[in-house]
């Protein structure tokens, strides 16, 4: 029998992490499953949040899958760090940025907690159901590559991880498509083959605006719409209610397709413009982490592909390493819907080189 490393599998109750666990079981790994509860405190009444990410239903599904696979199963509460995460989420909106709490969570909470738990349980690694490929070179260097299923690739959401985390993490689904994973789930008899995907933020079960109002009453106040030249276009209900690229739900008609192209939190102004005004030519990426490469030296410039949203195809760009460790990304063609606060993933071919957070954007000139 091959001696295989024990692995802690992060199980959400969905089809992906369930199949990931099953594949590892089939491969002969000793497996421990863990369900990470996010926003719900332990012992929350089942009726309070029956469905959605981290819900009681998910927990029950994980338990059933673990039972089916015959693996030990743990539930861990992430509540301690969640207050910080919620604060980041809210403050980002208040500051006029577009937050991505799930990517933040990966770095600050989820993977850290998983790896701590893995160490405590004697597991050599953590596995997740992300559609990401992980290669290990002859010298032991780990490379993260986009998943085989380009439509389902999830390497973007790992942009905040560092090399030590990816070294200790496994992604069994990287070589499968979603359809294949559902087929595997059926053949494994996991009972979650047709389960719908959960896409929402776990602590925001409804509309994020409602979440902000509940959390910070009184901070969302009326402001003004302006055009790209600064001309006043009328009142709005608070800049937090709008996101860059938003066209619908502006609260009034302007007689032509109008988009949110910028927000100024300091003055509570929302800048509206045409679709062409959405184009971003250059972004400044901060908090950069190098994932599949050692950090490049300042001043180096290289061609890459950059992704700024989940499920967006990476676009061609020239990337320059700034002396203060930031990345200056110049897109080959203006990219629409880019907002400060979003994550930016930098790829060379399909290898995730580095990732960081967009601090500023520079609109393309007409």
């Amino acid at each position, binding site marked *: 029998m091959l001696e295989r490393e024990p692995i802690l599998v992060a199980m959400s109750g969905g089809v992906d992490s369930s199949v990931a666990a099953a594949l590892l079981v089939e*491969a002969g790994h000793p497996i421990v499953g863990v369900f990470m509860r996010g926003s719900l405190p332990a012992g929350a009444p089942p009726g309070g949040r029956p469905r959605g990410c981290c819900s009681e239903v998910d927990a029950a599904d994980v338990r059933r899958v673990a039972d089916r696979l015959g693996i030990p199963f743990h539930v861990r509460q992430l509540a301690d760090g969640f207050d910080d995460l919620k604060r980041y989420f809210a403050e980002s909106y208040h500051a006029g940025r577009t937050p991505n709490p799930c990517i933040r969570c990966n770095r600050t909470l989820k993977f850290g907690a998983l790896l701590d738990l893995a160490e405590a349980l004697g597991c050599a690694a953590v596995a997740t159901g992300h559609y990401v490929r992980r290669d290990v070179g002859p010298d032991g260097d780990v490379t993260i590559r986009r998943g*085989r299923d380009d439509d389902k690739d999830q390497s973007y959401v790992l942009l905040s991880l560092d090399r030590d985390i990816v070294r200790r993490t496994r992604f*069994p689904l990287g070589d499968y498509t979603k359809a294949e994973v559902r*087929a595997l789930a059926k*053949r494994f008899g996991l009972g979650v083959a047709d389960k719908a995907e959960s896409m929402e933020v776990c602590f925001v079960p409804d509309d994020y605006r409602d979440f902000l109002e509940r959390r910070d009453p009184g901070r969302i106040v009326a402001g003004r719409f302006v055009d790209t030249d600064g001309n006043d276009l009328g009142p709005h209900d608070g800049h937090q209610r709008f996101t860059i690229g938003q066209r619908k739900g502006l609260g009034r008609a302007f007689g032509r397709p109008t988009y949110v192209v910028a927000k100024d939190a300091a003055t509570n102004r929302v800048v509206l413009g045409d679709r062409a005004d959405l184009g971003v030519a250059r972004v400044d990426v901060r908090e950069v982490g190098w994932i599949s490469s050692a950090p490049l030296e300042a001043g180096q410039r290289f061609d890459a592909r950059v992704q700024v949203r989940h499920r967006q195809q990476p676009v061609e760009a020239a990337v320059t390493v700034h002396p203060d460790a930031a990345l200056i990304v110049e897109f080959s063609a203006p990219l629409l819907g880019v907002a400060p606060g979003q994550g930016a993933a930098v790829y060379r071919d399909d290898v995730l080189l580095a990732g960081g957070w967009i601090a500023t954007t520079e609109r393309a000139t007409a």
Partner: protein
Amino acid sequence: MTRRTSVFWIAHGVAVAAVLVALSPWGRDRGRRGRVVVAFDASASVVEVGAGPRDVADAFATRFRPLDPSTVVDGLVFGATAAPWFSGAAPDTVAASMRTALPPVDGWGSSPADALAAASAGGGPATVVLVTDGSGVDDACVAAARGLRAGGHVVHVAPVHVARPMARPFLADVRAPLRVAPGAPIRLEVTVAARGASATEAVVAVRESGGAEQRRRVAVPARGAISAIVRFDGGAMRGVRRFEVALDGGPADAARRASVEVAVGDALSIGVLGRVPEWAAALGDGFAIRRVDAADAAVDVLVVHGLVAGPPPLDARGAAALADAVRDGTGLLAVAGSVGFGPGGWRESPLATILPVRIERAGPDADVSVLVDRSGSMAAADRWPSAVRGVVAVVAGLGSRDRVRVATFARDVAEAIAWRAVPGAAGAIRNALGAVRPGGPTNLAAAVDAVRFPPDEEPARRRLLIVSSDGRLGGGPARYRALGHALRERGVRVGVVQSGGDAPAAGLRALTLDGANGRVVLADGDDLERAFRAAADDGWWIDPVPPVRAVAAPTPPAGGWPQPQRVSRTRLAPAGRLVADAGDAPLVAIGRHGLGRVAVAAFDAGETAWAGPEPWRTLLPGVFGDERPRGVRGRVDVRGGRAVASLRVPEERAVATWTLRWGSRRIPFDPIGPGRLRTASFSPPPGGATAPPAFAEFGDRRVRIGVAVVHGAELAVDDRDTTRHARLATAGGGRVLGPGDTIPAPMAPSRAPAWPWAALALVAFLVGRAVKFAPIGGR
């Protein structure tokens, strides 16, 4: 003559006869008739330089006088390894027996000791005749012969060898790339070998047609080989570049010159469905790799790697398109990866029909108990026949080492088939269930309660209970949940087929522990058959991984073959050819489908557990079928009016089918595997003896090969080896056979004492004297 005198002489006659018998060979060896085992030397020193084993065997048959007609002859061939060739042949059919397929023998070395061990393994004393040039006779061999002698065997030696026209260096191999891209350098690897008594030197000259010549001086070891690397700059022109390779000096016979052609053009195009970057990294230069989403006839070889059957691109349509592409000539390399033969579902895919392996269920052997509802509800139209077909289908899907038991239930339980092995069970089940007439109420709880599985065994067997029911159960869900828990505690999984209804019955769901220990499949009518299979398939693949067994591959690449997890269970398809195996399972196999070839890597070593690029770099061109016969060693021996052609395929090749063209004649060869030797006898056309055959035809392609012609090689005793022969024969209690010698009778010398015959003689003598000289009483 008185009666006394008559008795006296009769008694003395018996005594004299007993004495003669005791002294005669018949008396010593009475009845202890042994086997004759003839071991033919197929080592390199015989086969490569001289004749093939068939030729040696033919010569043996003609050089030595026939054996006793009552003898039974076994034949074996040995080189570095030994293998049985034919067995139980009568002497007059030995020649015919020799035409049976030659077993695979690695002929580069010579190990008569192995041959002796194999010869003595048949039981009973044997007369062993070792037909050899003696080059492999060493101390171990002599010791083995001595051991055989001690065990009652006799070892004779029939020395053969050819005159040594090839003792000087000769070209053993010329390797060249199939194709190179424009501008890419061309690397030729020329191997020079010798079978001389001492090391020598040779000069390899490689000249491109119409171009420059390069020369390399190499030191050739005695009875060894050495390779020289010759590089030519790449050219931008597309086309064919031809290189003439020759050993400088000496006669320019076919064994000392060769030619290779290298196509300058597009590299072998590989279309990968699956892991493109992995293949690009693994194969490196020389291959144009691109991703394809479906069968693409524009590529030379399609690679299917790690895909799951069912969804695209390996859905039914995609798999059928792959099969069509292969049928039309595209090569296919199917790499199962970690799931293909397990939960990846290749077993049910049309892809499985063209693979050179057959996929069996993975995991441990299973005990499957089937409970079939025979209540009144099953009397509805087609339900019962469909259920019977379903049960048979379940059994048909089981492995040969699985066991099955079938019972029916209504109010009570009736066992249709007690626990038995799967082979042959389907017919019995069909007959038993065919006689059942459904009727009565449903009492599933009692039937489940009565299920018993065979006792625990090591290794553990899977236990599966398949239940068919109409869902109208006796008892509530709690009762069935308790039964479900009891089954689970006994390690039994449950698959339920519910005939009728729109939703699973609560009791049946409870029996499966709400899906945690199985599932409920809804079906009716014709769908019942499918539902039975689905119920049996559920969760089948998740089982403890059986122990990994050592990999035994004929050509392990650098770094070794990957270690399979043994989740897969495959066996070689009837038309498949084994390239490498892992224990009792094929690891790499190759076969044909229409005009194309299919290779399959049947291991499940995981997503990145590769053995390195070499096996694939070697295998892919073979799958494409455009492989130059690199390393093929061929020769034709011509003696008198008869020729024997032999071809050897190097170890790294997968399999080849050859036709030798000799003038206007085509001589077909059987398919040949790696490292194997094939020979064929034919009568050369007039004049052919002076013109070496130039081509071998590979499928529909004709390629040039180097084939040597050796004229008049005679089998003769090699003086240098005589000492070895004599030493071996002496150790084995036999003798060295000379031309025209009679093969010794297949009798084993008896150590049986002669005293019974002597005693008989003495008793007879005394009785005679007593009768004649005793006083006559009553006178």
